[in-house]
Every structure is written in C-alpha cells, then in structure tokens.
C-alpha cells in the first residue's frame, strides 16, 4: 500500500474516531476549561498557518507568487462583502487564473 493511501486512511479513520469520541465519552473527561480552550483554538492556529504556508511557501523555501496573493486578496474582499463560501472560492481562483492568462503575474 502506498504511503499516500496510508495517510488517507489514517486521516479518515482518526477524523471519524474524534467525532465518535466526542459523542461517546463522559463529558467530564474533557471538561477542563484549558482542554476545551485548546480544542477551540487549534483550528485558528492551524488554518492561519496553512494559509500562510500555501500563500508564500514553496517546499522548504518562501516564494512570492503575485497571482496567488492577488487571488487570496480577492477572497478576503469577497469575505468582507459577506459573500457565500463558493463565491469566495470562485473569486480567488478566477482572479489568479485571469492574471496568469493576461500574463500579468
């Protein structure tokens, strides 16, 4: 089995197990405020890190890709305008694609 399949299956099973554990374990097990606070803040830290790494990361180095950054800027503008999720995605991809097609970036 390839490494990618193992990663896919481990991710899938662990993500499901976390959901089931939440529904099943006695609530007091995770009742500690700091545990709850950590679980609630983890997505914030990881999502922000993922955005940064994917925006300017290229392997083990940092690189500026103007079309990609413009696409993210378009996504932020759409979010400020309270656009729905799919519009945000389309604005980002469309902006990057358009800039590349025009040869601007």
């Amino acid at each position, binding site marked *: 089995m390839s490494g*990618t399949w193992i*990663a*896919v*299956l*481990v*991710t*899938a099973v*662990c*993500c*499901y197990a*976390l*959901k*089931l554990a*939440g*529904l*099943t374990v006695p*609530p007091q097990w*995770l009742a500690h*405020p700091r545990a*709850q*606070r*950590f*679980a*609630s*803040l*983890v*997505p*914030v*830290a*990881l*999502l*922000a*890190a*993922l*955005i*940064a*790494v*994917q*925006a*300017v*990361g290229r*392997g*083990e*180095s*940092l690189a500026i*890709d103007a*079309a990609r950054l413009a696409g*993210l800027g378009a*996504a932020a503008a759409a979010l400020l305008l309270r656009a729905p*999720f*799919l519009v*945000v*995605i389309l604005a*980002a*991809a*469309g*902006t*990057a*694609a358009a800039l*590349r097609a025009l040869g601007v970036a």
Partner: protein
Amino acid sequence: MADTPAEPVKQAARDGIALGLAVGTSGLAFGAVAVASGLSVAQACVLSLVAYTGASQFALAAAVAGGGSLIAGTASAVLLGSRNGLYGLRLASLLDFSGPFRLLAALGITDESTAVALGQPDPAAARAGFLATFGSLYLTWNAGTLAGALGAGRLGSPDTFGLDVVGPAAFLALLWPRLRDGRTERTVALAGVVIALAATPFCPPGLPVVLAAAAALGAALLPSGAAGTAEGPGR
C-alpha cells in the same frame, strides 16, 4: 402560525437542507484540488466519505501537493479534526442518540451541522436540524467531490485555473468568522502564521503547520482572561 409543536422542527429541517446544499457544492472545489494535488479520485472520495470534514481534507491534500512529510500532513489534518470531538461533546446531551444510530450520527458532525443544531429552540428541532444538515451536506459534498475529482483530471495545469489558490481561500473562509470572535483568536492566528513561516526553511513541508498548534497551546495555558478578551472559553 406557530400553533403546532412541529413548526420549529420543520423550520430547522428547511434551514439544514438549504445550508447543506449551499455548502456542499464546495465539495467540487475539494475534489478538483485533491486530484490536482496528486491524490487519486478514489482517495479523494474516501476522505469525503469517511473523514467528512473539509478543513482536514484540504490540509492533507496540501501536504501531498507540497511533496512533504505525509506524517506531518496527517497530523495537521487530524489536529484540525479535533474540533469535531469538541462539537460531539456539546451535541451528545442535546441529540441523545444511542446504539448503532450514534455511530452514524457521529459521521455527521461538522461545523455546519453543529451550528444548525445548537441554534434551535428545543431538542426535537436540534435533532431535525442536525439530521437535515447531515443528509443534504453529506450527499452534495460527496457528489461534488466525485464530480470535481473527475473533472480536474481533464483540466491541464491546475495553476492555469487558479486551483492552487482554492485551498488557501477555503481556509481563509473557514478562519474568517473566528477572527471576528475576539482578540485571542486574532493573536493565535498571527502567532500561527509567524511560527509556520519561521519554521518553513528548516522543516519538511507539512511540519510547520503542526508546529503552529503551539500557538493554540500557549493561549490555552495562559490564565483565563490574561489574553485581554471578554469572551469565555469553550462557550
């Protein structure tokens, strides 16, 4: 005409179905990004069918695309999924599912179904809203994943269509409401960015994102209120 007790239940079901259909279409984006990242169509579909949690799925696809450590990619995907465990804790008493049905209901725990369930006036409506969101979102997310994955294979270079921006844009959309929650969230987000970028030149791709969890750990270990926000933890 709220003279029947079933009215909140119907309203919750309608809300859930509408939200599920709207959000589920972004499964198209996941399917396309997954295949563009180097996952197979089957791998993209297994993730949507079993993991069924968007941020984790995009995170694993990003790790595969970056050619980095799959262990770190898996770790960041699972860490991102840990919030669903917290949702489960909050939903357990409200939904009160038991037996085999609980095994199925667990799969349905997402940001969306939790938000709909917690927003209802009574447990019956919460159950209806949860199940309606689960049903419509699960079907559209998985159908979208399959369609996007099959479609992406026919496109040329993913960059031509801006697919490389879809992942970060999706993460930004998921992060956005949390940034409005308070100063703690904004500080943690900024610290996560700094940690990840500082670690990037020294680590295999994927690991910097896992290290960014230290930002959340630091904020969680601070005494409550020390971060200068008014909101209570874990509400």
